[in-house]
């Protein structure tokens, strides 16, 4: 009797594809932290995706997919750094090491921030929230935003800097409150 089609699949490819897709923003952030350049980050992200797909069979079901993916990314960043000429690297080796944390603590730090950040975004002034949405949700560049709002690129950068600081302060306060409640 022929087996149902799905039983022939060694791995649930569809699920993994979805996992990999949904983890893209986290991977992007994780790599960007260590490379500090968007274009180069996308390059390493692509390499990481390739390895994640190819090594999918090595992922142990039930363990943290994020942790596994970050470990793969870490290796890819190391390999990538080795391949690069010094002029493409923002961070020197010593700073790169100083910035390193355990994968678990990094995951936890960002996990905790997501719900808090959502409420902080809601507390922003309307025009600031819209700007953050255009910048992040729509992925628009500072140049595009400056052009549309008829501001200089520098002025637009300053506005985004101020909003990021406001969000940072809001997240800080809420994280402290959470910590107080836990004790």
């Amino acid at each position: 009797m022929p087996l149902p089609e799905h039983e022939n699949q060694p791995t649930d490819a569809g699920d993994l594809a979805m996992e990999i897709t949904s983890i893209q923003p986290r991977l992007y952030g994780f790599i960007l932290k260590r490379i500090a350049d968007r274009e180069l980050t996308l390059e390493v992200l692509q390499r990481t995706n390739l390895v994640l797909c190819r090594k999918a069979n090595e992922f142990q079901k039930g363990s943290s997919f994020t942790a596994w993916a970050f470990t793969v990314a870490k290796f890819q960043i190391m390999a990538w750094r080795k391949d690069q000429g010094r002029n493409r690297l923002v961070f020197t080796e010593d700073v790169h090491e100083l910035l390193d944390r355990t994968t678990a603590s990094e995951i936890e730090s960002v996990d905790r921030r997501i719900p808090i950040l959502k409420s902080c975004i809601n507390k922003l002034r309307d025009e600031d929230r819209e700007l953050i949405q255009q910048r992040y949700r729509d992925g628009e560049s500072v140049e595009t935003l400056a052009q549309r709002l008829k501001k200089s690129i520098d002025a637009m950068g300053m506005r985004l800097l101020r909003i990021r600081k406001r969000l940072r302060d809001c997240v800080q306060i809420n994280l402290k409150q959470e910590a107080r409640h836990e004790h």
Partner: protein
Amino acid sequence: MSTENASIKEVERLVSQMLDRQLSEEQATRLNALLRDSEDARQCYLELLDNHEALCTIYPGEVFETGLDIDEPIDDSSNEVPAASKFPWLPWISAAAAILTLILVVSLNFTNNAEKSLANTGTLSADTVARLIAAVDADWKDANHEPGSSLSTGEYSLTQGTAELEFHDGARVSLRGPASFELRSEGHLHVYSGKLVARIPEDALGFAVTTPQSEVVDLGTEFGLDVVENGRTDVHVIDGLVEVYERVSSRSAAGSTDGVQIGEGEARRFESEGGFRWVDIPFFSRQQILEDRHYGELGLSLLRGNVRLNDHVGKRHLKTTTANQSYIEVIPEKAATELEADTDVTIAKPGFYKRFGPSGGTIPAGTKVDSFLLHFRSVDGEPVRGVIKFDRPILGLICEQNELMVTDGLTGLEDVVFPNQAGGFRGLEPHSRQQIGKGSNIKNAGMSPDEVTLSQDLTTIRMSVNVVPDQGVDQMRVLVQSKD
């Protein structure tokens, strides 16, 4: 304000500029120095970057907007992104360089075969010496090497088709199957049998190709080899100068160690028996050596990616969506069709496109065109990428459903069922700005929207197409100026 406080403020500013892609090289150096000097600065950096990661998770638009350069404002009234201002990388040569980073094909191939080929190609392991950058109708013995993958030292057997390798030191070698060869280092290729053409840039000088009979040391040039197993080696010098030596291992005690120089437009045959002997033979061009006559006749060449030419298309062939490998199927359609009416195309001008709505331009009635249908095939959900060049101007690219349907009857093959009632869409996605990056369906939630670049001189197309089987058919028709 304390100095510590001042440097934290500086970190905040530099981080914000970095996130907005406004960080200059000097500023990058400064950021590095600040982070080196102070733990507080590092805490500040990580805090801001953790927030950024969280923000990207809430709003992933920034992440999925991948591509070459997407800063240009996109005007909804036209598909075209102006090529001149923000795209100094056009003309094509530098665009092809940018593709280096994009060609890494994201593969969702979970078969054992892929695992095996990974073991063999080990994406970034220390002993990779070359990268497979293009494949035409290529099949490998006991392996499945996809364009974009790295190749380690070791033996390879190309049973048919053409494969183009780029060695890490810059040498580019096109091999024609059947060919059997060994990658020995990033500057050394050993060929047991087969045909190849090697192009060596100046900084890869000293790249060596050895065969059982001879050692060809390149002196900055392009040359072709035809190696017959246990037989002879033919050397054709297409450009520059090469030196051929007798192989050390086969050198007899009394044998000469002097090299033989061969100049441009010359060819010599080196025999394996009776010592190190050679005769002059007629010179062959690159096309003659690689025997890509068929492609030559069609006037197209592949620069990157995986292409299969299909000129025997069955009636229902275009309706099948399954594939066990990712490739662009190139289907030659009618040649020398004179258009009876003005014909709408999706893209007619040079530029970088990621939206494919109707009315990108018109080819006037009376124009004579040759037509090619590109059909993008893939295993589960991986983008298919490639760069194809024609030897005559491209008049229009058609990747919008209705325009495809209209031209099916004009320039498409007869007796072929086109997938117009496929339930899904046909062509390339997205068709409008609203579909970009919103993640509303699986196709757009993938790595990137479909992207097409048409070169300034209208001869070359770069493609990156997300294929999701069972969700429509990814096709593009290319109309080029007819040869006749």
